[in-house]
C-alpha cells in the first residue's frame, strides 16, 4: 500500500493530530470538505490502517400517539385512581370510562404501583384506592418527552421506566443514529506531517474507466479483411444490394426451379422487376445455357424479379461479364441477405467477401496458396482443405481452420473454379478462380462471441468494452 496520501487524507490527518477523536460530521465542518469526500477519505485511511473508526449508536426519543394522549390526559393508571378517588367502583363502572386495552393496562400498572385494592364481592370485583398516590416514575418519564425527539434528558434511574413505557404500544418512538468517531491509529499518529506536503500524489490509486469512441468491432474485422485482400493484390469492386434474379441466379447457372430461388430462402422485393437486365447477347446466351444444361423453359420474367442479393458473386460475375479481363485479381465485400429464422448462428443480413483470380496460368493450387496466405495474415495458421459442392464452381473446396480455443476445426471460406456453364455464355474465356465466405464467422472468432446477433445489438456496454481475443 502506498504511503502517498490524497489531499483529503492529509487534511483529515492534520485535524486529528490536533483533535484526536472527531466524528465525520465534525471533520466535514472543520475541513470544509463535503460529507462524501470525508467518508471516502476516512475509508481510504482505515484501509491503509492509518485511522481507527468506532461506530457509536445514539438514540433519541419522542412520544407516540398514545404517549401524547397520556401526557395530556394522564396515563391509564392515573385515570383509574382518579375514578376511584371518591369511593370504590365495580369493574363495570370503571369500564364505562376506561375501555379495552386501557382498562387492562390501568389495572396492571395501578396494581404494580400498589395504588389499588381489588375485592371480589357478590356484585362483582370492586376497586378501591389503597393509599394516597404520588407521581410515578413512568409519569415522570412521560413528562420529560414530547412530539420532538430528544436525547440526554434522562437520569440513570429513568432507564427502567423508559424501557417499560417502550413496551406499551405507541407510547414512545425510539430513533437510532450512528456516528463514526475517527481517531488516528498508532501508525497514523507516526506520520510525518512535513512529508505530507511534498506534493507527491498516489500514483497507484484506482481511477475511473473512460470510454473511447470506436469503430464497430465487426467493422474492424471487415476493415482488416479488406486490407488483407488489398495486400494480396486484389482490387475492390462493389455493386448494389438489390439485384435482378438474372445476375443473382440465372447468370450463375442456377435453374429457375432450384429450391434456393424459392421465397423461403431468398428475399424478393415486392412488386419490383428489373427493366434493364443485361445486354441482349448476355440474356440470349444465359437462356441457352439453361435450356441446354437443365432442359426447361427459361422465363425472362422470372429473371426480372428483384431480390436482395444472396451473395456478392452477382457483383463479381457482372463485372467479369462486362469487362472480360484476361488477367485480374478483384474482390467484392458487403452485405448479403438470406430469408432465415434468426438464431445464434444465422442472420437475415450479414457480410460476405469474395475474391476472384482470373488468369491463363492460374491453378487450383495457387488459389489454395492465396487463401493460406490470407489466413496467415489475419492470424489463422492451421488450415486444411476439403472437397465440397457449390452450384457454380467446379472443382469446389472448403477451407477448414483450426481454432485453439474451441479445440476444433471450423469451416470458413469456400473456393472453386467457375463452371464453364457460367463463364462461357458470358464470354469469359479465361479460368476464374473464386474464394470467399461470411465475415461474421471470422469476427466471432476474433471477439470470442458465440452469438452472431451480438454484432447488431449495438449494446453500448459491449461496444465500449469489446476486446479482440485473437
Amino acid at each position, binding site marked *: 500500500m502506498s504511503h502517498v496520501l490524497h489531499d483529503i487524507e492529509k487534511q483529515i490527518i492534520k485535524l486529528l493530530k490536533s483533535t484526536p477523536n472527531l466524528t465525520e460530521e465534525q471533520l466535514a465542518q472543520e475541513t470544509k470538505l463535503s460529507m462524501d469526500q470525508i467518508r471516502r477519505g476516512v475509508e481510504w485511511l482505515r484501509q491503509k490502517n492509518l485511522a481507527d473508526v468506532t461506530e457509536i449508536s445514539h438514540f433519541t426519543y419522542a412520544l407516540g400517539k398514545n404517549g401524547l394522549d397520556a401526557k395530556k390526559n394522564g396515563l391509564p393508571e392515573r385515570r383509574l385512581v382518579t375514578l376511584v378517588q371518591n369511593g370504590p367502583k365495580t369493574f363495570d363502572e370503571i369500564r364505562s370510562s376506561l375501555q379495552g386495552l386501557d382498562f387492562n393496562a390501568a389495572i396492571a400498572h395501578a396494581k404494580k404501583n400498589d395504588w389499588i385494592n381489588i375485592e371480589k364481592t357478590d356484585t362483582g370485583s370492586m376497586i378501591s384506592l389503597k393509599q394516597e398516590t404520588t407521581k410515578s416514575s413512568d409519569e415522570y418519564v412521560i413528562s420529560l418527552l414530547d412530539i420532538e425527539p430528544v436525547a440526554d434528558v434522562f437520569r440513570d434511574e429513568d432507564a427502567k421506566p423508559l424501557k417499560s413505557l417502550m413496551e406499551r404500544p405507541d407510547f414512545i418512538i425510539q430513533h437510532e443514529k450512528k456516528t463514526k468517531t475517527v481517531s488516528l491509529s498508532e501508525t497514523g499518529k507516526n506520520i510525518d506531517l512535513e512529508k505530507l506536503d511534498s506534493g507527491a500524489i498516489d500514483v497507484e490509486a484506482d481511477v475511473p474507466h473512460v470510454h*473511447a*469512441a*470506436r*469503430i*464497430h468491432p465487426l467493422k474492424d474485422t471487415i476493415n482488416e479483411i*479488406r486490407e488483407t485482400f*488489398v495486400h494480396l*493484390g*486484389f*482490387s*475492390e469492386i462493389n455493386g448494389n*444490394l*438489390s439485384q435482378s434474379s438474372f445476375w443473382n441466379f440465372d447468370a450463375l447457372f442456377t435453374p429457375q*426451379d432450384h*429450391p434456393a430461388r424459392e421465397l*423461403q430462402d431468398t*428475399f424478393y*422485393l*415486392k412488386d*419490383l*422487376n428489373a427493366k434493364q437486365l443485361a445486354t441482349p447477347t448476355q440474356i440470349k446466351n444465359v437462356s441457352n445455357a439453361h435450356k441446354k*444444361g437443365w432442359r*426447361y423453359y427459361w422465363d425472362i420474367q422470372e429473371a426480372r424479379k*428483384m431480390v*436482395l442479393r444472396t451473395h456478392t458473386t452477382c457483383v463479381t460475375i457482372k463485372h467479369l461479364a462486362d469487362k472480360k479481363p484476361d*488477367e485480374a*485479381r478483384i474482390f467484392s465485400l458487403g*452485405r448479403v*441477405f438470406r430469408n*432465415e429464422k434468426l438464431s445464434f448462428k444465422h442472420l*437475415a*443480413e450479414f457480410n460476405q467477401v469474395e475474391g476472384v*483470380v482470373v*488468369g491463363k496460368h492460374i*491453378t*487450383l*493450387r*495457387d488459389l*489454395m*496458396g*492465396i487463401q493460406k*496466405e490470407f489466413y496467415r495474415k489475419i492470424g489463422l495458421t492451421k488450415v*486444411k*482443405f*476439403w*472437397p*465440397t*459442392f457449390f*452450384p457454380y464452381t*467446379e*472443382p469446389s*473446396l472448403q477451407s477448414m481452420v483450426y481454432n485453439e480455443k474451441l479445440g476444433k476445426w471450423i*469451416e470458413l471460406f469456400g473456393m472453386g473454379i467457375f463452371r*464453364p*456453364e457460367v463463364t462461357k455464355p458470358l464470354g469469359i474465356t479465361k*479460368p476464374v478462380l473464386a474464394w470467399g465466405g461470411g465475415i461474421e464467422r471470422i469476427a466471432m472468432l476474433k471477439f470470442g462471441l458465440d452469438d452472431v446477433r451480438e454484432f*447488431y445489438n*449495438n449494446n453500448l456496454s459491449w*461496444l*465500449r468494452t469489446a476486446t479482440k481475443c485473437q
Partner: protein
Amino acid sequence: MPVVELSLSRLQKLVGKNTNKKQILDTLPFLGLDIESLGRNTVRVEYSPNRPDYSTDFGIALGLQGILGISKGILRLNIRKQGNYEIKVDSSTSKVRPFVTGIIARNGSLDDKAVKQIINMQEDLHFGLGRKRKKSSIGVHDLDRISFPLKYTTTSRDHRLVPLNSTKESSISEILRDSEVGRDYGSILGQSAKVPIITDAKGQTISFPPIINAALTTVTTKTKNLLVEVTGIDKQSAEDMLSVVVVILQGAGFQFSQLKVSGSKNSTPNFAPRSIVFDADPVNKILGLNISGSMLVSCLKKCRLGAVMKGKKIQCTIPRYRFDIFGGMDIVEEVALGYGIDNLKPAWPASVHIGEKNATSERLDSISRLMTGLGFMETLNSTLTSEQILYEMTNRDSSQIISVASSKSQEHTILRDLILPGLLENLSKNIHETYPQKFFESGTVFSKGSPIKETTNLACVSASEETNFSEMKSILQSLLRIGFSIKCETKTLSGHALFSQGRVAEITVNKKTVGYIGELDSKVLENFKIRTRVVGFEIKLNGLIFD
C-alpha cells in the same frame, strides 16, 4: 445441405477388406461428406445435393471403396433383357405427367436398416432432383403382387383405391383432401380432371403418382422382388432418378431385369455409360499438377469412374447415375478427389498485382476515423428493418415503402430509406447506460427508382441533457471541412417529422440540399422511450464525397 445417418459397423461391412472405423471417419470428408455429429456407432454426414447416391450407406460405401483403393473403377451394371415386364403408356398422360420409366429388381433382401436407407434416398430424390415430386417421383412396389403388362394411364378423380398405410378404399379426391401427402403434393396435378395412375394386367391400381402407392404392393422386410417406377414431366430427370435407385439396389444385392416402356413419346430406359475423351495437359494445368496419363486414369478409377489411355488422350467412362458430371471441369474435380485434396499442396502464384480499395470504401473509412475522433461510437444496423421502427415510431409517411415478400422475421420486412431511425432504436436499447451517448452509422439506404435506387448516407446522433443544435452543427461542419474541404450551411426549415419545430434545418452544400439536421422531436423520442435530449443529422454522401 441434406444429411444422412450412417451406422459405422454396417458401413464397415459394406466397404469390406477389414477397414476400421477411424479410416472411414478420416476418409469421409475427402469424399465431400462433412461430419455433422458423431455417436458411438453412428455418424451423421452432410452430403452435396448433386450426389444423391450419397443419400445411402450403399452409395457412400461405393465411394469409400474407391478412394481407399479397395475396389476401383466403374461398377458394371447387368440388366437382363429377357422377361415379360412391360408398361404401356396411354397418350392421355401427356397432358398431366407424360413420362414413366422403371426397373425390375429381384432376389434381394432388405433388412430394417436397408429399408430406412432407401426411404431416405427416396425422400432426397423427391426433394432435390424431383423438385418436390413435381419433376419426377418414385414408387417402389412388391413385384410378386403385380401382374404384367402394366398400364400408365389417367383416370377421373372419383376413381377408388386403397392407399398405402390404409385398409380403407378412398377416392382420388378424398386422398388429395384428407391425407398429408395429398395436401402437400396435390397441387402438382393442378386442376386437371384426369389424374395419372398405374394399373396392372388384372386392372388393379398399384400407384397414384406423384402422390401415393396402393396398399396392395406394400414393401416389407420379407419382400424379395421389387418393381421400381418413376414418373415425371421430364424424361431425362426421371431416368436420372431411376439410375440412382438402380445403383443403390445393386449395392443391396439385387439383380435387374428390364422394364419395357412403350407408347406416347416414352421408351425403355437406357443405362449405358457416357464417355468423355480428354487431354491430360489442361487438367494438369488447372490443378497445378504434372501427373502422368496413367496416374490420371488411376485417380478417375478411385472415383468409381471408368478410365483408359487412348494414345495420348484419356477416355473416361461415366456411369448413368453420375449425371452431376457435365463436362471437362467436372472431370478435373474427379481427378482432384482421386489424387487426394490432401496431396494438393498450396502454391503461390508468380504474377504481380497491385491491389486497391474502392474509392467509396476509402471515403467511408475516413468518415469512420473522423467520427470516432469527434467522439462518436460506430453502430451497425440491418438495412432490412421493420415498418415499426422506420415509419410508425418516427411518425413518417410510409407511402414509398419498399418491402420484401414472406420474411421469416418480423424485424426484417422493409428496406430502410434513412439511417436515423435505426440510431434512435440504438439509443432506445441503451437508456440504462451512462450518458452522453453519441452514435454514427454510414451505409446503404434505398428509395424507389428504376426500379430501385441505392445511395450511401451518414447519420449521427448525440444524446444527453446538455447537447444542443450547435453541437451537432459544429460536428457536421468539422467533419466535412476537415475530411473533405466541403463547406456546408444550414437553412431554416418549416418542419420535418423527425425533428422539433423551429429546431430543424436543411443541410446545403453549394445551395443543394444534402440532408437534415436538428433536435429530435419529443413525440418521436417518447415513442422510443428516450428520456433525454437528442440532436442528430443525416446526409447523403453520393454526389458529395463520392459518385
